[in-house]
């Protein structure tokens, strides 16, 4: 007779831990299945960490501690520029480049924050708050429509003139695989602003190595973590889940499954093949020798994008299966021995040669800021996240992002967020939806 659990969670990522913890607190016998030997720290900065999850699971008390909070955006170039939360500090820094941009900055940020405040409810609190524009007046609605249908390039071009500033701001618009001229890309800017709003300092932060996963493991409570347990199939019967089959051939029966894999991978496991998008985001982890002398750089997400048009060029190249000569990147110093580099857009499938090329590009792009980086390098890991977000994804109500055509199968990974992010929100929402059903 095979094993039985009330709920299975596939993938010990932040979303997986979140779902499993909430399900266990709801009284369900829950197993968290992880294919690798041990859960891994997220391979980047925490850009959208769910503050409610952090508070409700009491993660700080369980060991979570931050190396840096409230990360500003650093614009790389001949004259470096740090854009943080303080509007007037950012403004006066911008005044070195352009008076017009310095004047436009506070208005731009306030505008994004106002839109973010409206949409935040829609994106994160639940299925029950109604349409995002239900209570708006005509003027707000008009400006929201304009934002929905605008490409970020046009939206930003109408406001700023400094090329390096435009190029850096456009980085955020490419999240999820948007081309910066596509409708939805301007809304991606609002999504980012929503992560950086007042009171969300931890939502854009770097945790001390191991403390996030450590605290989440301690928060699991009655839920059980099983490592080295790879799910090879999601078993279904007449449109509903019945359990999973593991790599060793054994089965676990369950009525509910929460998957933190991508939508395409999850449905593939359930025997419903999905087309994969043609472009991806590459997350490159650079491991450094212990003694590496880290230059004195402020904790920030550093954007490497010099020209505004390189985003469009790279998107076009990626769709044609090429890695652009000028590839936009972002890097964050996770720890003295680890740098997370994100590069996008790149093709969804890379040849071995292209992987090498990508790794070399990342190292070369960082070298000016990090003398001696190439010599200190001890390892490079590249992970690809295929994704091609669309306007509808950003406007879809939360349940539709979590639901699948299979009854009892919910998503809680990065695909279940409005834009891919290490958040944990989708896990919390999925557990809640499942417990209330």
């Amino acid at each position, binding site marked *: 007779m095979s094993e039985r659990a009330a709920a299975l969670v596939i993938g010990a990522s932040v979303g997986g831990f979140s779902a499993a913890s909430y399900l266990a607190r709801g009284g369900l016998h829950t197993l968290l299945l992880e294919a690798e030997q041990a859960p891994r720290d997220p391979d980047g900065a925490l850009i959208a960490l769910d503050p409610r999850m952090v508070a409700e699971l009491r993660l700080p008390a369980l060991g979570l501690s931050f190396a840096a909070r409230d990360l500003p955006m650093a614009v790389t170039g001949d004259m470096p520029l740090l854009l943080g939360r303080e509007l007037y500090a950012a403004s006066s820094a911008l005044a070195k480049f352009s008076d017009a941009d310095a004047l436009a900055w506070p208005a731009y940020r306030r505008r994004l924050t106002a839109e973010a405040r409206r949409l935040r409810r829609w994106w994160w609190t639940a299925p029950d708050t109604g349409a995002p524009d239900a209570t708006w007046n005509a*003027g707000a609605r*008009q400006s929201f429509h304009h934002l929905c249908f605008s490409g970020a390039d*046009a939206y930003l*071009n109408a406001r700023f003139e400094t090329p390096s500033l435009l190029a850096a701001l456009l980085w955020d618009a490419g999240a999820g695989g948007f081309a910066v001229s*596509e409708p939805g890309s301007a809304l991606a800017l609002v999504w980012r602003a929503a992560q950086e709003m007042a009171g969300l300092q931890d939502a854009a932060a770097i945790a001390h190595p191991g403390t996030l996963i450590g605290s989440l493991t301690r928060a699991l409570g009655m839920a059980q973590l099983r490592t080295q347990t790879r799910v090879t199939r999601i078993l279904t019967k007449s449109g509903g889940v019945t359990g999973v089959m593991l790599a060793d051939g054994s089965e676990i029966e369950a009525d509910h499954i929460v998957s933190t894999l991508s939508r395409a991978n999850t449905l593939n496991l359930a025997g419903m093949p999905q087309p994969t998008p043609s472009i991806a985001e590459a997350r490159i982890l650079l491991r450094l020798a212990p003694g590496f002398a880290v230059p004195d750089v402020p904790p920030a997400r550093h954007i490497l994008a010099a020209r505004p048009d390189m985003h469009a060029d790279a998107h076009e190249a990626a769709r044609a299966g090429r890695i652009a000569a000028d590839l936009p990147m972002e890097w964050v110093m996770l720890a003295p021995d680890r740098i997370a580099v994100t590069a996008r857009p790149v093709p969804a499938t890379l040849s071995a040669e292209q992987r090498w090329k990508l790794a070399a590009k990342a190292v070369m792009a960082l070298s000016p800021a990090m003398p001696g980086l190439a010599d200190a390098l001890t390892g490079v890991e590249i992970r690809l996240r295929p994704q091609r977000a669309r*306007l509808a994804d950003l406007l879809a109500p939360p349940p539709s992002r979590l639901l699948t055509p299979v009854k009892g199968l919910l998503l809680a990974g990065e695909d279940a967020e409005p834009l891919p992010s290490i958040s944990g929100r989708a896990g919390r929402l999925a557990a809640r939806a499942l417990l209330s059903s």
Partner: protein
Amino acid sequence: MRYDAAIIGAGADGLTAAATLAKAGLKVVVLERASRAGGRLVTLEFHPGYFASPYADAVAEVPLAIARAFGLSLRPITPLPDGLRATRDAALARAFAEAMETPTVGTLAKWLAPPQQSWPGENFAATELAAWPALRGRALAGRSLDPELAGSALALLSLPLSEAASGGLGTLGDDFAEGAEAAGAEIRLGQEATEVVIAEARAAGVALANGSRVMAKSVISTLDLRQSLLSLFSRTALPDHMLEEARNWRMAGATARLLLALRRPLRRETPLFLPGDSTARTAFRHGRVPEAPPLLLDPVSRRDPGLAPEGAATVTVTLGAIPHRLFDGGWTPEKRTALAAHALARIEKAIPGTLAILTSVKIIVPPDMESALAATAGDLDGGALAPDQMLGLRPGSRTALPGFYLGGRSTQAGPLGTGAAGFAAAAALMADGAK
């Protein structure tokens, strides 16, 4: 003498507006910079015995009422699929309805009005042109759109699928001019408008390049939004938000044309579309001459034998993703030749033997269109067809300056039908007059 309306530009829009207003009994004058009426609807003898319409072979469909009023004889190149037609017609109907409405006084009423219904084309904002392979060529020819990006399908609402039954687009231009004059409008050729005269906070006439003034109760500009607001007014004459809107309005001129005179008929009877490669749009963004831009070859004299001498052929080639401004200077003769050479090499590869029968090539690049048609950046669509510039967010016919109307391609009705924007502007003017 004081007119009821002065109209800037004698293209399809200006002449439609003129005829509509004149028929209603208004005293109308049309001011045209060029020495002939018709705007882009012209056909020239580009080589002895060979005729072609230099700026386009076809136009966006002419609304039936307008085609009838001017007695136009048109031929559809391909019929528009029903789904597209319904959306386009709904959008057009909405633009007309908005024009005919008498506006409530003041801006407060506008803010208190119930939220707008969604615009008829909104579903296209998330659709790619690539999903419509049969119409892709006509939508991409002469444009810089990326057919794989969401929103590119909006170009389908402005497909140039109507051509003149015979004699090229110039015959349509002549029909429009005759129709306007027959209705009682006065057309003044060779008169360049330089400024809109403002008196008592409303438009009161047009100042001309020759120093004279034409006084009128209302003015309709059929120029694009940038030209209308930025070049027809002194800097302080309009409220800041209007200037801001015009400055941020994106023009997307990307059309080059080759007119080919062939000694013998081309070895192909139907149009040929070569989509080009992904480096073309990169070159476009960087201001370089692209090697393989989207190319639509049309053997126009097959359908309209009068365009070429007996036994010979006129062929037009429309190239897209051609930058208006090159990063290293102007469109020198060498650059023009390079552009033509790349295009001809691709054509020769697709239809071998073409070069051997080629007699003459005329090259038209975006700055030529800009200077001939007063279209900013040579954009024949009046602005980029991006979702934020379509979907009801284009300006309407009315402006914040009383008595000044927009009747060109930049307005909501502009890209949806030939003459439609002129009709909407005339309708708005009459609705306001009736107030």
